[in-house]
């Protein structure tokens, strides 16, 4: 991995504020495609810039991270910039990075929250190829003005079925952030999902 010191946020304070606002907007208006600025910072090989911004902003030494696929040097990168430890057991993770095309890990393997503290569940960052060209999905629910349609490309065929099953557990269940390039779409567990094509 190239010089690890260039792979963080250029400005840790303002950069993380900008990234946080982007994630907040995405979570508040699920389905909206939010773009992170392209000058926020570097991303290590194997991670798209949006994913990098999310991890650099939200992770710290108390948020264990699970990487579904080994990416060279990724644990060191997370450790160096955020202090976040990597974990082997998905259940221990507060954040997880998954490849949307792979069905290797089910949402159920991650912490679902509990009745007293549903917010303690994991947040999954799922990378896909792009946000257009895929099957059309209709989203409704809190934060969505009647309905919104998205069509991410590069997610495995059972992805939306699994999401719907996860969201049926509301208020428990995981939250998902889709990431592609500089863009992100948040799918909190409050969203209702319908496959339309």
């Amino acid at each position, binding site marked *: 991995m190239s010089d690890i010191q260039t792979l963080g946020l250029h400005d840790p304070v303002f950069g993380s504020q900008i990234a946080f606002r982007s994630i907040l907007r995405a979570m508040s208006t699920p389905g909206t495609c939010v773009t992170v600025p392209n000058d926020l910072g570097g991303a290590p090989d194997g991670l798209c810039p949006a994913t990098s911004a999310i991890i650099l902003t939200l992770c*710290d*030494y*108390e948020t264990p991270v699970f990487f579904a696929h080994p990416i060279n040097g990724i644990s060191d990168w997370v450790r160096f910039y955020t*202090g976040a430890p990597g974990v082997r057991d998905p259940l221990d993770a507060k954040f997880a990075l998954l490849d949307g095309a792979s069905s290797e890990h089910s949402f159920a393997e991650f912490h679902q929250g509990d009745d007293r503290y549903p917010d303690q569940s994991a947040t999954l960052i799922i990378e896909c190829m792009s946000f257009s060209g895929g099957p059309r999905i209709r989203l409704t629910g809190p934060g969505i003005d009647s309905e919104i349609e998205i069509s991410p490309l590069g997610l495995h065929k059972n992805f939306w079925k699994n999401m719907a099953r996860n969201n049926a557990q509301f208020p428990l269940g995981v939250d998902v952030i889709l990431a592609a390039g500089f863009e992100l779409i948040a799918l909190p567990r409050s969203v209702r999902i319908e496959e339309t094509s």
Partner: protein
Amino acid sequence: MYVAVKGGEAAILATHDLVAEERRGALDVPELSVAQLREQQKLGLARIMNEGSLYDEDLAALAMKQTQGDTIEAAFLLRAYRTTLPRFGASVPLDTAKMAIRRRISATYKDLPGGQILGPTYDYTHRLFDFHLMKPSEQSPKATVADEPVDRSMPRVPDILGDEGFMERELPATNDPKPYDITRDPIEFPADRDVRLQTLARGDEGFLLGLAYSVQRGFGGNHPFAGEIRMGEVNVKFVPEELGFAIDLGEITLTECQMVNQFQGSKDVPPQFTRGYGLVFGHAERKAMSMAIVDRSLKAREFNETQEYPAQQEEFVLYHCDNVEASGFVEHLKLPHYVDFQGELELLRQMRAELNARSADFVPEAAE
């Protein structure tokens, strides 16, 4: 009908300017420097650091300057700042046995290993004004240096008692779990000792002092002895993962108090002394002592003592000793409660009208 007044934002901005003016005071008087406060107001800084829950003398001095000496406002500044600091780990537990002692006394043993080191204390001052301090001193004060340094290590008094088997044993729980962090997770009841000690450490000195006093006066069953009070510098150590061994991050001043309390015995446990523990930043004996007395008092639950009095009731103590929270709720009354109050006023008018109507019905025949 009461009507809200407009122009709020401008008025609010003006308050900042007024505060700045008030803070500066008379312009022909030199402005306070943070360095002066840091060097010459250390006991005030200690209180701000404890109640602000952050050890940083420069920041505490800045907070003192910025708040014109309002300790609770200053503690608030430190607490707010603390939340912005990224954490990278936890230190190794502080070893107060290795403290570089500047003061160490015991009220339980007259002659003890290491001796009674009086140090810089106000205990023997006569509480008379020293009017020389009205002007800058002409000579720098200098205490005489002793022939011998104090002992490098001084055993703790409760450990002396413990060697005889007379002191309540306090052992870490099985597997020595990580202590609860009250800044991360909310307090729940019943609260374990780690939660209680953390909360007391940042508790208001005045509130805890009052509670400790109440315990001594009989509102709680403990009769404490000051087993030991020590003050001095302790190294803060950290083990970076990459190195695998501990490095020194720096040193902090701490005051530690161990109170020794009356016999406690039950069918399972022989009579023994029980402990109250206080540990605070900086030189702050009154706070450390009060904390230790209240710590012992809150062990009432674990010792099956009746929890009759406020100092023995953990919900009462732990919820109300945080002065930033307390002042938040008390001072929030200054926020507009106009709608609530309109409701009250209407209710009162209605109740009064009903009362008048009823008493009109009962007017006796005096009308003739």
